[in-house]
């Protein structure tokens, strides 16, 4: 089972829910945890893995052989991202805008364009007790997120269940993170902002054909999320109350399994997702 945890709105508790589930599952089986929030990966703070290896995430960028380039500008015409501009007699590259499609290299009539690799981030691998861990880290200043997400998701292999921590938002980064998962938990909060973004995130999971369940976090703040889900027949798999003690534990980077109440809450959630497999 590959479970992704997303939200739409940031700060609703994705990482807490994903980490809590991983820690409770790890008490009885091996589990893989993939932190795909590569812009701001935080799960390692709660899971405390020992990092055993790091590899660079690279993207291809064009390299022009000036001895063969005639300055025809075909590459600049082809490039959909403005990464190549035609000058008077040659062409200029803007590597930061390159999406690595290879079009310029494939279509240059003089075969004057090769490719070199540029590092945009890293994947760290490690383990905690019964947890195989990996997260991606985008290099600050880099714009393109999806290559790092794609690379960290390559760590998912074999039959071991995996939990994927998705970034906030509903755009291509979130899509890349949850794509291919068997189920997606959408963590929301009962505010107009939380519900607005839940609706958007739901649209994405539906478009990707991923089974979705809602977790209402801080459910006791208002009944807005409950009413929304009831009216639209959105399935709610868990309701987690606001707990100042949990908030303080989170602040100091402690595991969310702070007491029997939360241990039981996460056990129930694990059972609801994994059923008899747990």
């Amino acid at each position, binding site marked *: 089972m590959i479970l992704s945890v997303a939200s739409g709105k940031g700060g609703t508790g994705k990482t807490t829910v994903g980490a809590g589930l991983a820690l409770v599952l790890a008490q009885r089986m091996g589990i893989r945890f993939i932190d795909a929030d590569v*812009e701001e990966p935080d799960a390692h703070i709660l899971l405390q893995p020992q990092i055993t290896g790091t590899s660079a995430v690279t993207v291809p960028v064009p390299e022009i052989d000036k001895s063969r380039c005639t300055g025809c500008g075909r590459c600049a015409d082809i490039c959909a991202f403005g990464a190549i501009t035609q000058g008077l007699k040659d062409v200029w590259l803007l590597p930061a805008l390159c999406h690595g499609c290879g*079009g310029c290299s494939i279509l240059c009539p003089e075969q004057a364009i090769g490719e070199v690799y540029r590092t945009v981030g890293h994947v760290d691998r490690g383990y905690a007790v019964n947890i195989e861990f990996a997260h991606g880290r*985008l290099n*600050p*200043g880099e714009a393109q997120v999806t290559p790092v997400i794609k690379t960290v998701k390559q760590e998912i292999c074999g039959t071991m269940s995996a939990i994927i921590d998705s970034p906030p938002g509903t755009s291509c980064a979130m899509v890349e993170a949850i794509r291919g998962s068997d189920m997606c938990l959408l963590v929301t909060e009962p505010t107009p902002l939380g519900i607005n973004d839940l609706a958007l995130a739901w649209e994405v999971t539906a478009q990707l054909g991923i089974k979705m369940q809602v977790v209402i976090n801080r459910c006791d703040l208002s009944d807005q999320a409950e009413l929304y889900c009831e009216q639209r027949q959105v399935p709610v798999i868990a309701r987690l109350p606001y707990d100042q003690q949990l908030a303080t534990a989170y602040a100091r980077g402690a595991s969310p399994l702070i007491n029997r109440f939360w241990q039981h809450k996460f056990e129930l959630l694990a059972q609801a997702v994994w059923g008899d497999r747990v």
Partner: protein
Amino acid sequence: MKQLAVISGKGGTGKTTITAALAALAGNVVIADCDVDAPNLALLVRSNLRESYDYSGSKISVIDKDKCVQCDTCVEFCRFQAIIRYEVDPLACEGCGVCYHVCPAGAVMRTDDQSGNWYVSDTSYGPMVHARLQPGRGNSGKLVAVVRERARVIAEDNYSLVIIDGPPGIGCPVISTITGITGALVVTEPTLSGIHDLKRILEVCRHFAVPARVCINKCDLSETNTKEIMKWLAANEVAATVGIPQDKDVIDATVHGVPIVEWSSGDAVHAVRRLWKQLQEWLENLSGGS
């Protein structure tokens, strides 16, 4: 004319709540919601839609099945696994057009991909430019640039300040949010995750030479972590603003969809008012952004 962006790195630290409060205190400003993935500012700031525009971030490929000879050339050259059973998956298509160029049968068409909308609305505090990218789509950075540019044009000659609600993270929509602004207010929280993410977003600000000040929201959640943040900021020559304490009124205001400064006058609101004064003085002494 100055431009202030409210960003965070970590999601959920209170950007939109604080942006709405600052707009309410400032009055007569141009507001820009650059969180185009999941725009929320309109939920806190009462607005009337005035103008609506289609947004097309890129072209997308479409395969004409009548012309397609199923030679798999497009599949061979597509680096984004976007072609499955001779159909282009719009959520995976990068818009590069390589399939269009390599197809020997001329079976691939490129069409403008209408992937979102952007809007201009009137609010009690001034005009607001906002947008919505269709869920799952890419090129959010470009849509942010559209919002930024219209906000700048509206503000030029008529307003002295643009307040920008930024997206979470550090990727392309955030970069697009902060390029060319006067200064960034980075909203953080005193948690280990918040501290970790704060350092990364500040590195991005430094990379793009954007002046930044840091506001610790819910500063009383952890005195230890607040002290650690202050120490780190001092060591790295980044100034902090007044911190904002936890306050039940903030939750109540958010649940009711009202800027906090119009809901109560408790501790958090008191701090936000002081924050606004600090920001006004700071922006006055900064150049850039016009």
